[in-house]
């Protein structure tokens, strides 16, 4: 009985914070998304009107939303496989029996993950500078012409993807290294005795045993990459020609630049539903593959 009361008292501060500043606003967001909450409502609540699903309907009819969703999907579809590929390749190298100082390399590759996104995005903005950037200088050394990375609508998103891969590959690398270390050594010895070569060991032993980790990493990275915001905010301001305007950036502009908080809430909910649906699809396909 006493423990029962104590339990509530101990949990209360955290539950209050999470309830008041997370659950209430999440529920409130749905309510706000059904209104025309704008600058006038912000000044005086009497200007607020219930509009039902009008915000959603309007968004689904607007080119801005679809183009932002398209850009975000581009970022996810290209960025996630590249990131996970880089993470896995690096993890295999770091975890290799041949590697000296694995702890040193692990730390180095993780450094971009902890570095403040806004600050390193600024650094990359200069690295990608058309005239003075190190990257175009390097391309010049290879005999290639300079690319107007952040000023050309075709190149801005690839540039941001490149940056995101650099920034994030260390995170999943850590998870892959832990998973690789949990694979029993005798499996490799057995494969070796059976005459498997390096590639066969990787494809028949390592990859199948990594599948659950791969699934987890995939789901988390996809969900994370759908939240694209600070990279275009700092590097391109959504441009050129809206080519790097992401869904979250659109939400930010609608909500806190134009003060259309109703429409912004609807965008946030749509993004949430899309991520939820994509996650469900990923889980569905991974289960089917496992049972097949």
């Amino acid at each position, binding site marked *: 009985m006493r*423990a*029962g*009361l104590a*339990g*509530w008292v*101990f*949990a209360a*501060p*955290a539950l209050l*914070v*999470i309830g008041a*500043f*997370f*659950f209430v*606003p999440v529920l*409130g*967001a749905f*309510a*706000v998304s059904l209104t025309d*909450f704008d600058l006038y409502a912000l000044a005086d609540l009497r200007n607020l009107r219930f509009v039902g699903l009008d915000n959603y309907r309007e968004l689904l009819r607007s080119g801005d939303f679809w183009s932002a969703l398209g850009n975000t999907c581009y970022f996810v579809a290209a960025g996630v496989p590249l990131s996970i590929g880089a993470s896995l390749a*690096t993890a295999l*190298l*770091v975890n290799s029996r*041949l*590697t*000296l100082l694995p702890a040193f*390399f692990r730390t180095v*590759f*993780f*450094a*971009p993950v*902890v*570095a*403040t*996104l*806004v*600050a*390193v995005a*600024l*650094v990359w903005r*200069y690295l990608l500078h058309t*005239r*003075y*950037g190190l990257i175009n*200088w390097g391309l010049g050394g290879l005999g290639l012409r300079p690319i107007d990375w952040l000023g050309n609508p075709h190149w801005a998103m690839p540039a941001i993807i490149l940056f995101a891969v650099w920034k994030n590959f*260390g995170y999943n690398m*850590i*998870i892959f290294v832990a998973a690789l270390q949990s694979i029993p050594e005798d499996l490799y010895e057995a494969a070796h005795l059976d005459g498997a070569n390096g590639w066969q060991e990787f494809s028949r032993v390592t990859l199948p045993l990594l599948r659950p980790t791969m699934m987890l*990493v995939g789901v988390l990275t996809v*969900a994370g990459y759908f939240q694209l915001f*600070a990279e275009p*905010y700092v590097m391109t*301001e959504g441009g050129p020609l809206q080519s790097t305007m992401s869904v*979250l950036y659109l939400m930010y502009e609608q*909500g*806190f630049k134009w003060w259309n908080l109703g429409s912004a*809430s609807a965008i*946030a909910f749509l*993004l949430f539903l899309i991520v*939820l649906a994509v996650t469900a699809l990923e889980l569905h396909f991974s289960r089917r593959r496992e049972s097949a």
Partner: protein
Amino acid sequence: MSPRLARTLVHLALGALTLVTLLPLLWMLSVSFMPRGEASAFPPPLLPHHATVANYRLLFSSDGGGRYLANSLYLAGITTLCSLVCNSLAGFAFAKLRFAGREALLRTLLAALVIPSQVAMMPLFLMMKWLGLVNSYAGVVLPAAAGIFGVFLVRQYALSIPDELLEAARIDGAGELRIFVRIVLPVLRPILVTLAVLTFLGSWNDFLWPLIVLTDQSMYTLPVALATLSREHAQDNELMMAGAVLTVLPVLVLFLALQRYYIRGILMGSLKG
């Protein structure tokens, strides 16, 4: 392939990756010591000809760098403190104290982990406005003072505390708070360091919410100030790189000092799914 060749190839690949990983960070450091305008040249200079701390001096004198640094330190520090108190109490309660509704609450919290924070942002802003907390430190700290992830992090660890240990203390007549402070907290110490590092770095690096809720430039954190200033000073490479160093250096140092704890947190977080 001979083992020696294989070893060389592996290290060549690792060396190339190290270069790619560190080059942007080293270049940032190098440019931050260049006099104004030196970085805008072709080919881009790798090292300053005449290293100078003028950018840092300017940053701290006229551009309020000291102010932003203090804001960032203060906000990340207070947030970490609050999150340590709230999450450790709740994490312990969910692991070791039986109370009505515990399992239902746990399930609700776990399910809510899938909701991204930006869904809450518009009403949260309105709440802060009505509470008069827009453009205040409390407006940044309060929403992060406890978190579902933090509660679960502590709970997973606290599950391993033997019940007999707590029972024995209760039989000796110790109150729950006393048991928590004297027995539980020392056992939880490693996971609390993990939580502290994760919270501090998360708060320091956070961008979207501070950008929304802090409206006065004197309240800005380093990332918000940096993003805003870089729009005004688009040509001042060297100054902006000094600002970037000021922003990144504290978290990198903290990570290097406590990376064991940080990485444990990531691995525990990735196992929760």
